[in-house]
């Protein structure tokens, strides 16, 4: 109640605060290297990938005047724009040819409208030798497609610095000349199918991993430590082997003249070698084998901690072995099942090498198409958009998991 005591307690409080702040700063300093590492190696590249998927200045910087002149064009009243736009395009085609940028612009236009590359390159080669207009007639004489609204609206739509075109394409959509969003023509629609296929194969692999992994993990958790440690080696040894090695080992096993086919042939069980590879069967078998440890390890760690007394109590109260297992043991092992399922499923979604080497053309998962756009078609924008959609999908899946199961259950071994 004396003034001194108030001062003291205020003093004490501020001292405490200061001490806490010091402590906090020290803690932040300790995690600083990790934070910097994550920022540099993960968050910044991720941001660049996202930026790549929406930012594309190629047409805007390559054909600025044409894009500008197209603002006055009303697609509803005339199928193609005025002479101004044709003249601007002719001039800018010449500049682009001189700067060797024509090919890049043509490729960018071709991403949005198939066939535009051929049209653009052909026209820019012919325009090279023409000095004067009227350009409208000359363009349409070179190729009658220049009278189509689709061509010009692609130029207009790609003419801004930011684009949603890559995301639309990744979802099998496109814009029509009136800027309405519509489905791609049937022979160009693939990515929805590929996403569905990716989820289906990953789901199948997760189910098989569970069916094979559950009994193994159960056995390992029940055996005495010495035996179970020995058996654990058999689970871990392949786990420590390179994925590429395990995949190529499956090629040796599954090919026409491979170990499995020649054994079955010599036993007289089959007369013709079976098709075990370059199809979905090969992909699912190899992926299940490669991902199995990711199911077994979390299951094992959860099962180890399930007390056996509950099952014994249930049995002594008259439950059959099946009821005791199903009603008492299985629910207690559920955290392991869901943790293993989450790990296997998320890892499976991103698989690339195994389907590439063991699958046919119709078994490729989304990673294959990301890589294909990245390295062969060099459509980096579309590759980025596909990657971002995949990441977003996994985050949504993960947040559902977090909400209904809880992430704290995930542990390995």
């Amino acid at each position, binding site marked *: 109640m004396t003034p001194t005591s108030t001062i003291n307690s205020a003093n004490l409080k501020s001292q405490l605060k200061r001490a806490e702040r010091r402590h906090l700063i020290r803690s932040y300093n300790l995690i600083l290297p990790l934070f910097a590492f994550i920022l540099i190696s993960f968050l910044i590249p991720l941001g660049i990938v996202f930026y790549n998927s929406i930012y594309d200045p190629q047409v805007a910087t390559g054909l600025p005047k044409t894009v500008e002149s197209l603002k006055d064009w009303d697609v509803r009243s005339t199928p193609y724009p005025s002479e101004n736009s044709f003249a601007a395009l002719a001039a800018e085609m010449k500049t682009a040819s001189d700067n060797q940028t024509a*090919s*890049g612009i043509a490729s960018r236009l071709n991403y949005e409208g198939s066939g535009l590359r051929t049209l653009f*390159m052909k026209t820019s080669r012919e325009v090279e030798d023409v000095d004067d207009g009227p350009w409208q007639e000359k363009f349409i004489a070179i190729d009658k497609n220049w009278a189509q609204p689709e061509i010009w609206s692609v130029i207009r739509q790609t003419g801004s610095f930011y684009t949603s075109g890559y995301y639309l394409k990744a979802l099998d959509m496109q814009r029509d000349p009136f800027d309405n969003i519509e489905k791609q023509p049937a022979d160009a*629609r693939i990515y929805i199918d590929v996403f569905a296929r990716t989820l289906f194969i990953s789901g199948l692999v997760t189910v098989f991993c569970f069916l094979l992994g559950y009994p193994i993990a159960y056995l390992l958790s029940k055996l005495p430590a010495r035996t179970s440690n020995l058996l654990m080696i058999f689970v871990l040894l392949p786990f420590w082997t390179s994925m590429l090695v395990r995949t190529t080992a499956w090629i040796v096993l599954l090919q026409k*003249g491979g170990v499995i086919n020649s054994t079955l042939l010599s036993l007289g069980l089959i007369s013709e070698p079976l*098709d075990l590879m*370059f199809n979905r069967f090969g992909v699912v078998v190899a992926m299940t084998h490669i991902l199995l440890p990711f199911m077994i390890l979390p299951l094992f760690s959860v099962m180890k901690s399930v007390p056996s007394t509950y099952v014994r109590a249930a049995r002594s109260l008259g439950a059959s072995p099946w009821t005791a297992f199903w009603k008492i043991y299985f629910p207690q092992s559920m955290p392991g099942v869901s943790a293993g399922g989450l790990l296997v499923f998320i890892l499976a979604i991103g698989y690339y090498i195994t389907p590439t080497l063991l699958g*046919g053309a*119709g078994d490729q998962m989304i990673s294959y198409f990301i890589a294909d756009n990245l390295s062969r*078609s060099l459509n980096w924008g579309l590759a980025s958009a596909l990657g971002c959609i995949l990441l977003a999908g996994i985050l949504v899946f993960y947040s559902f998991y977090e909400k209904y199961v809880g992430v704290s259950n995930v542990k390995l071994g």
Partner: protein
Amino acid sequence: MKTFKAKKLTLALTISAGLVTTLCTNASAAEIVVASWGGAYSQAQTEAMVKPFTAKTGTKVLMADYNGGLAEMRAQVKTGNVKWDVVDVELAEALRGCDEGLFEKIDRSKLPAGADGSPAKDDFYKGLLTTCAVATISYANVYAYDKTKFSTGAPTTLEDFFDLKKFPGKRSLKKSPTVALEWALMADGVPVEKVYEVLSTPAGVDQAFKKLDTIKSSVVWWTAGAQPPQLLASGEVALAAVYHGRIYDAVHKDNKPFAIVWDGQIDTPDLFAVVKGSQNTQAALDFVHSATSTKSLADMTKYLPYSPARKSSMKLVDEKIIPWLPSSPHAGRSMVLNAGWWSDHADELNQRFANWLAK
């Protein structure tokens, strides 16, 4: 104490100076990377082109493998991280890469004259010298089969390749629309000289894909030229589209029971181009000059029966090899790949092909 420190400093300086010198000499001692198609083909190039060049100039040449296309060159030039100095490209890529500014221009007047004294521009066959690339050889896209697989009647025509009833079993094709679409049309009855005309129309493209649909379920797709002989050898496929030299190699070196069907032969020239932004442009150009000399091109045929791009080289080719060259007359239909057409249409057909494959 001070002297000790000074000594230490001198020592450190000497070592680092030494290191710097070594690094610099390494950088300046010419060394170039040549990207090519691997397998028997790269080995032949190493013997006929690389070894004589290194012996003459002391420039080290590293061979890198790739599977064609411009994507990697584009990525290297675009990101300013050029790792390859010389690439072995097909004609369509040579034209397109030049358009896009991926390759250095090559002055054809500086190319060495032929052994018979004729200047390079007359010595090379027509169309094989482009602004940015110099041709080396032409190979044929053909298909081959395993003779032990067909006891009753072997395939003889391109139609047989598409005939699953007469010749059951898997067949292998290159994972690319090039050659596959031409073959599909030829097997569907389109005459050789009309192929590109038909393929230029949307209906023609549909017709080609429709024909490919008939064998789609039985195709194993390959990406590297070394794969089809392996697929034939392991019994994975009965018929395989292949670069003809690979079959020559498998028959002569590994005694494989393979035979070539010469019907539907599509000839494609390979060219050397110098990647723009290469660290050793001069050494790379020197290599291209030396590797496309009369002797080097003729020597290539000792290892693989590919037609040399120079007329003067033909006189040095062993007579036993001549029947194997694509330029020698063969029984079936043959055509030259229309590179100009492909350099324009590759984008949309690649896309269409990728979509068709994925379904």
